[in-house]
């Protein structure tokens, strides 16, 4: 039986705010409220990385948030997709090149879909999630690492060790 087609029927969302102004977060919550009601498509806001498929990230990734973001990314089981919501998450937005931000989510974890806007409109967020589901359907189940991480994945996967290795590299970068 091919289970892949059920992936886009019940995507569960994990939402993380990496120092956003809360504008995009309110729009994400507006998607779940009666007017847009994304539960029609089986989308639930789980708040639990171990049981979710889509990571919705808002904000320009502050220095304190980058480690948490990486931890959350590692705690999500594959297949998973990352959606960067809002101008800050895409490129840093008005905070770009400030001393305390990472200039966007894709500097820390690989991003599949970028949703622009300040704040991103609920229609745009739903559009972004639909695009993310197409990517999710094609994804494999092998462990994904950030592009800058040089760790090797060997069959009995130890996520704790992989995370430690990546964190070491993340903190040594600057």
């Amino acid at each position, binding site marked *: 039986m091919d289970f892949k087609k*059920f992936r886009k029927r*019940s995507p569960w969302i994990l939402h993380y705010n990496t120092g956003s102004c809360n504008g995009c977060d309110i729009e994400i919550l507006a998607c779940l409220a009666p007017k847009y009601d994304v*539960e029609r498509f089986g989308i639930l806001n789980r708040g639990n990385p171990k049981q979710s498929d889509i990571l919705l990230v808002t904000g320009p990734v502050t220095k304190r948030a980058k480690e948490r973001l990486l931890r959350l990314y590692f705690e999500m*089981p594959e297949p998973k997709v990352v959606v960067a919501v809002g101008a800050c998450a895409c490129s840093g937005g008005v905070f770009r090149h400030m001393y305390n931000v990472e200039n966007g989510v894709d500097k820390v974890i690989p991003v599949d879909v970028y949703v622009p806007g300040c704040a991103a409109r609920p229609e745009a967020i739903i559009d972004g999630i639909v695009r993310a589901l197409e990517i999710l359907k094609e994804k494999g189940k092998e462990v994904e690492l950030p592009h800058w991480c040089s760790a090797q994945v060997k069959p009995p996967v130890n996520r704790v060790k992989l995370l430690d290795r990546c964190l070491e590299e993340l903190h040594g970068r600057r």
Partner: protein
Amino acid sequence: MSYWTAFILTLFSPVIGGFIYGLERIVRARMQGRVGPPLLQPFYDFFKLMDKRSIIIHSFHAFMGIMYLIGTWFALFVLLSGGDLLIAIFFHVLSLAFLVVGGFSVRSPYSVIGAMRELLHMVAYEPLYVLSAAALYLVTGTFQVSGILHSKHVPLIYLPLFFTAVLFSLPAILKKSPFDTAEAHQEIIGGPEIEYSGKFYEAVYTAKWIEYVYAFFFIFLFAGGNHILGALLIIFAFFFFNLLDNVTARVNFRQMVAFHWYILIPLAVINLMLIALWRS
């Protein structure tokens, strides 16, 4: 009911429970002015979780998740095969104990808090279920489920206060608002089930569907031999607890235990004493 019909019915109980859960999600959405997911949504979730990679914390934790499923399933089998009511209640307690032990075995604080609250849930509602087994015995003269289902009496007429008490503790057994402290999704993100993922979360998820069937079968017993009344009671209980879920906020664990021990259990005991006096 013969042994084999019961076996097949138990085997398909997750399907029945899944449909109840799907219907519940639609009813809840409609009550909130939303459209809600399709009826088959729980099964889509089920098949999606089959395909997810499972992250295991340690093997004992994963094993406890599966034992929770098996324990609940077995408790339901005892009920459906017309076995002893007390044994079914006992196996249900045992299955929850597996979940609690699994919750305590990991280092996540949410999981440990959730497991403690799960124990408080058991303290709150289990006495009521044991008492209701005793009350059903007083009315129908047997602890056997098959005997209760073929009894000439309708226990609901003799046990109205009891039925009210069980109805109000339904949110506690199914972990719905106002008594959902054990898996408060906004504060402890699911409690004891937080660390399960992939296929092991699927086991816990399915066990919750089976608990729906278990809880509603208990409601069904209150109609005794009158099965049409039983079906009506189930439909009433379903809408009642959905309404209760939507209109109430979460109470804390003290209020939950106090409500059960100071209001529901005295109600049940008064009913029990009146029926015993009337019988003698």
